[in-house]
């Protein structure tokens, strides 16, 4: 699909994480960040994010620039910065940004596990009362998204993901749990992204370019025959992704 981007959005149980490449030039990072945010449209409005900078050195001005782009231009809320660089740490302190320690999400980020649903310029999603979470381990939250995913668009969910619409070629869905599409899947779907091997992918029309479940990958055979056998489901059986007609059993 696209070149390796220097910016990645990951849905984790602790919320959305923006992972920043450690090596690429700062200019590239900013350009990719702007592009990713613009491409995502309004998916993330109101979402809490943690910035994962790895060992990257950022000075105060640079960190401020990144934060401004994410917060002011695109309406996300940075709840913390994850870094191993001393320089970046002091920049974060100077800007009064919370520093998140390895594997310990920001205290207020753990209360929210859901990525904001897509909105079309509607006001930010309301805060979830902290009492609703955390969801017990093993039980993933389910998110319902009503839209068409087009080429270049990506959506990540920390739980199960239900899409009411088509997922076109060039679009990517990633979910820690199952992915269920009430429409056609022509793009890429990655279920069980955090290693859940019993995750499944179900679509009314399963014509993906690629499927991933946990650490398994399956490609389409190439010849895109839009045969329509009805709803189908993909899951792992004997260490391989298999596709079966839905409702056979």
């Amino acid at each position: 699909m696209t070149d390796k981007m220097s910016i990645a959005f990951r849905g984790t149980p602790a919320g959305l994480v923006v992972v920043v490449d450690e090596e690429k030039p700062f200019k590239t990072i900013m350009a990719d960040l702007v592009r990713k945010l613009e491409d995502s449209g309004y998916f993330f409005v109101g979402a809490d994010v943690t910035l994962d900078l790895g060992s990257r050195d950022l000075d105060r001005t640079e960190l401020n620039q990144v934060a401004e782009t994410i917060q002011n231009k695109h309406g996300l809320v940075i709840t913390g910065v994850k870094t191993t660089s001393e320089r970046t740490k002091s920049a974060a302190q100077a800007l009064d940004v919370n520093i998140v320690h390895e594997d310990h999400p920001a205290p207020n980020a753990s209360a929210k596990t859901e990525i904001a649903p897509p909105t079309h310029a509607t006001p930010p999603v309301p805060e979830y009362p902290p009492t609703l979470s955390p969801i017990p381990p093993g039980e993933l939250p389910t998110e319902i998204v009503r839209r068409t995913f087009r080429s270049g668009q990506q959506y990540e969910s920390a739980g199960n993901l239900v899409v009411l619409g088509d997922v076109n070629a060039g679009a990517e869905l990633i979910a820690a749990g199952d992915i269920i599409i009430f429409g056609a899947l022509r793009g890429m779907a990655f279920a069980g992204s955090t290693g859940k091997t019993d995750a499944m992918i179900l679509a009314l029309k399963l014509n993906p370019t690629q499927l991933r479940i946990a650490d398994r990958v399956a490609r389409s055979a190439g010849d895109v025959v839009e045969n329509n056998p009805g709803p189908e489901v993909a899951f792992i059986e004997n260490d391989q992704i298999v596709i079966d007609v839905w409702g056979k059993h």
Partner: protein
Amino acid sequence: MLSKVIVITSGKGGVGKTTTVAHIGTALALMGRKVAVVDADIGLRNLDIILGLENRIVYDLVNVIEGTCKLNQALIRDKRVGNLYLLPAAQTRTKEAVEPEQMKALCHSLRETFDYVLIDSPAGIEGGFRNALAGADSAIIVTTPHVSAVRDADRIIGLVEAAEKGIPKLIINRLDIEMVKKGEMLDQDDIVDILSIGLLGIIPEDPAIVTASNRGESVFNNDKSKSAEAYRRIARRIEGEDVPLLDLDDNHSFLGRLKRILTTNIG
């Protein structure tokens, strides 16, 4: 009537945006509407060439935006259709010479004089595209019936929706029925199914378009032209008329239709 500002764009380059703008603009003007076609492909201007107006350009869009000249000094009246005006792009400048806000203001002024403002956009996701989109109320996406063009169109539709320009309308250009019949080209149903937006029209592959464009003429000079009929129908649909497509649902009647129109025109 309330004037409409429509941007004509695409994901992939070379699919026929400029040709489409010139012909739809001409068709609307022939229907009596006052039309401005704006070349927003700054640095790569060619709408003037297709309209055969290249040698009349004195001022351009960037001059207007920078205040070097007045808007009406830069507008060039078409040599055949009195109601049609061109605002040419600057050839020697880059897209950085214009900001989206300035395009908005420009489109706003054009609304005062014109019923339709059609903006010829550069392809793709660059700054030039954002400028072209900035002042528009709605968008028309042009694609050819090729997998890669449709894929890129899909991407652009997503961006137009994110920019809150509503759901764009689709024009399929250069459809070759023979190729569709052989299964070598996507047919209109496949394309509409994938892109799931409304179809504004289908323009057949027509060598006469290339010849006419090279001479700075339009296909309307030739009454028999089926592409001219396709453009006229698109113009009527833009006007809100409910006109049937040149094709029908299944391939058979699609062919029947085209044949009938051809024989009617010849006869």
